[in-house]
């Protein structure tokens, strides 16, 4: 199993806060994406997430997407907190709850905004009896985007920031499932193109909620290779968020659904919790998690 990224990024990168869109029609493509991005960052702090990650091979039957097999399900619990002068670095710890064969596997990740700094990841496998550093590299740099828990989501799919590295065009307005959306095209710069597997991404941004409802990822041959669909867009604690995200890999015909079962933000998380101790010291971890849960109530 490859565990290479921070669930904190996963969770928070896909949340979008509500922004009053005064004179929204006058926004440029860049401004639309920046608003979404800034909103994501503002909600990216001190979070506790319970999520379910389901993957399966899919097929199209009578115009509808269906799983062609019983989906494989992982249940995860993650705690994340932002650091740095602009709160752009993220530390997170993720524990696998299910399936039983992977229960107790823990991952600690430090993700740095600065592209000069490599992200750091440590994994705890109870069978090995020790914490092990993982060669994860930096998803922003020369390395290939990393898969999240073996799913079709990669770090690149859930990434934020770096908008300056794209040429962003507002293609127009359309509807997506009864919602008015902006259709925004993102083309990577020459430098960014070396770090991405996509030659172009088209986003469908909800004009009222600034939630990305659909993303189309194209390869260098202008073929759509992946499509992300968002659903269950709900207002939770004054935050509009897509609680269900489905990434379809159109090459392998496999999809992964990321369901945010519970999300809590602005919690008081001790810095010590986001260290290697949380991976190895289960007594400490459970005690601290219990403190976090008490904040949820």
């Amino acid at each position, binding site marked *: *199993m*490859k565990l*290479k990224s921070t669930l904190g990024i996963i969770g928070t990168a896909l949340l979008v806060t509500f922004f009053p869109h005064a004179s929204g029609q006058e926004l440029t493509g860049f401004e639309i994406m920046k608003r979404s991005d800034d909103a994501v960052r503002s909600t990216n702090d001190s979070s506790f997430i319970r999520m*379910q990650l*389901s*993957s399966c091979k899919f097929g199209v039957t009578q*115009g*509808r*997407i269906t*799983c062609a097999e*019983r*989906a*494989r*399900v992982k249940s995860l619990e993650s705690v994340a907190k932002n650091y740095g002068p602009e709160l752009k670095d993220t530390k997170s710890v993720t524990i696998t709850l*299910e*399936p*039983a*064969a992977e229960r107790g596997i823990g991952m600690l990740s430090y993700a740095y905004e600065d592209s000069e*700094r*490599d992200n*750091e990841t440590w994994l705890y496998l109870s*069978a*090995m*009896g020790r914490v092990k*550093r*993982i*060669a*994860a*590299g*930096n998803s922003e740099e020369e*390395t*290939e*985007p990393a*898969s999240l*828990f*073996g*799913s079709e989501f*990669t770090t690149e799919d859930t990434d934020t920031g770096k908008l300056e590295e794209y040429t962003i065009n507002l293609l127009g307005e359309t509807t997506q*499932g009864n919602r008015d959306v902006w259709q925004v095209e993102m083309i990577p710069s020459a430098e960014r193109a070396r770090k991405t597997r996509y030659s172009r991404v088209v986003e469908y941004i909800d004009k009222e909620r600034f939630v990305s409802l659909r993303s189309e990822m194209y390869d260098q041959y202008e073929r*759509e*290779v992946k499509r992300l*669909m968002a*659903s*269950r867009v709900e207002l939770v604690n004054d935050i509009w968020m897509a609680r*269900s995200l*489905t990434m379809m890999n159109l*090459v392998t015909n*496999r999809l992964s*659904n990321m*369901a945010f*079962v*519970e999300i809590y933000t602005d919690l008081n998380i001790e810095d*010590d919790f986001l260290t*290697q101790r949380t991976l190895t*010291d*289960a*007594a*400490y971890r459970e*005690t601290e998690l*219990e403190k976090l849960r008490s904040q949820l109530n």
Partner: protein
Amino acid sequence: MLRFCPLIILAQLLLTKTYAQQEEPLILDDSVSFDTELAIDDDIFGNVFDEDTSSTTSSWFEGFTVRINQQFSGQVNNHAVEPFPGFSFPRESELETNRLGINVRYQNAFAPGWLLQASGQGRIYLNNDYEYRANKDHIDTEFRINEFFLQRSFGQESIKFGRQTVVWGETVGNSVLDVINHSEFRDLTIIDIEDARLNQWMVVWDHFGESSNLSSFINLYPEFNPAAVRGSPFFFEPLFNLTDYDRESKLLFEAGTQWKKSFEGSDIAFMAAYLYENQLLYEDPVTGIGDAVAEKNDFILLGFSANKAIGKLLLNFDFAFSHDVLANSFDFPGTSTLSSPLNLKKDQIGTSFGFEYAVDNEQSVSLGIQVQKILDAEEGLLPGQTLVNDGTFGSWLVRYSNTLLNSDLVLSSTLQGDLEADSLLALLGINYTINDNWAISGQIISINANADSPLVFFAEDLRIGTTITYSF
């Protein structure tokens, strides 16, 4: 002359072919949807949003993880082995394992700062399993407690008391510092050190400091590598019965401490310990009859370990200085031999180093090399005497893995050999997760060795095994 296993090469080619295959993307037009609304029909992933997740109280029963497995494996190559010129014996194909096993793990944080953790295993040896044959063709059973400890964490401290594992070193699989716990290589179907390492009764104290951690242990009941189980592939009828160490009234203990610090992109650790060699030395009985005499040996270990992550590359390094190890002790995993009793204590240095490289999202490669050398090896030897381990000696290990189908399918291959190129183990493994409960795995292991290696007794052996597992 060593030969590479053609199966491994074939497997590598198949893996490469699998990875290289690239299908044309599926064309999804806008009429395709999950639902009539924008929303995806989440029901295809289960009713996760409809389940009540508000309850955070868990019952004690939820701390259990159970794994039930059925394993078959056997040696399938009919051939003859010639360990010494002019002496050979046949190696017939035969089923070696046919066993039903259960592993139970329990973890319960029953109060703030307190944790109870236990794990154990049971085995039922069925028809034609070597333990079945050793039990005079009767079903045999075995039960073992692996972990059983109570943990108390408070402030920056944590204390664990009970049966547990202490692992030192960065190199996976063959670290010169991974010598705290003893081990048992009973079957040739398992070569991972984490599956062979045995727990011991210890007290472990961890101090989590601001910028570094200190971990210390004391073991008041040191244990030793068990002798090979009668009937197992590693078992050879010895001249004298190999028994465990006779402790009598002697108080044995081991103790050690490790200081560890993490930097950005790197972890380092220093360690020191007073230990007993895990492998006992066996001497002939004085009277020439009865059991072999098991002798222990205590020594001092000083060590250093470090890693460095550079992008997708992780470098590992371990160094060990061992004071007063038995120079003539013989310590090949899983073997227990009667060695020539020179009883010479020597100092030894050793290093293990290597790298892990993430080729891409699915593939990874790792290499580990272990090198050891006895210092002043000739000192104290009588004319004509030689040490079992002379000069530099060690082993190497290469692993490759390819993860497919969202991690449901894992293909792996391992090559392991000694530095003198006297032996080579080649392993091909496949693991397929059928669903959230069921998984199946298969292994092919090929061994080649010449007369200078103790593995010569397994030369040209080819083993095939499969295990089906149900977890909940």
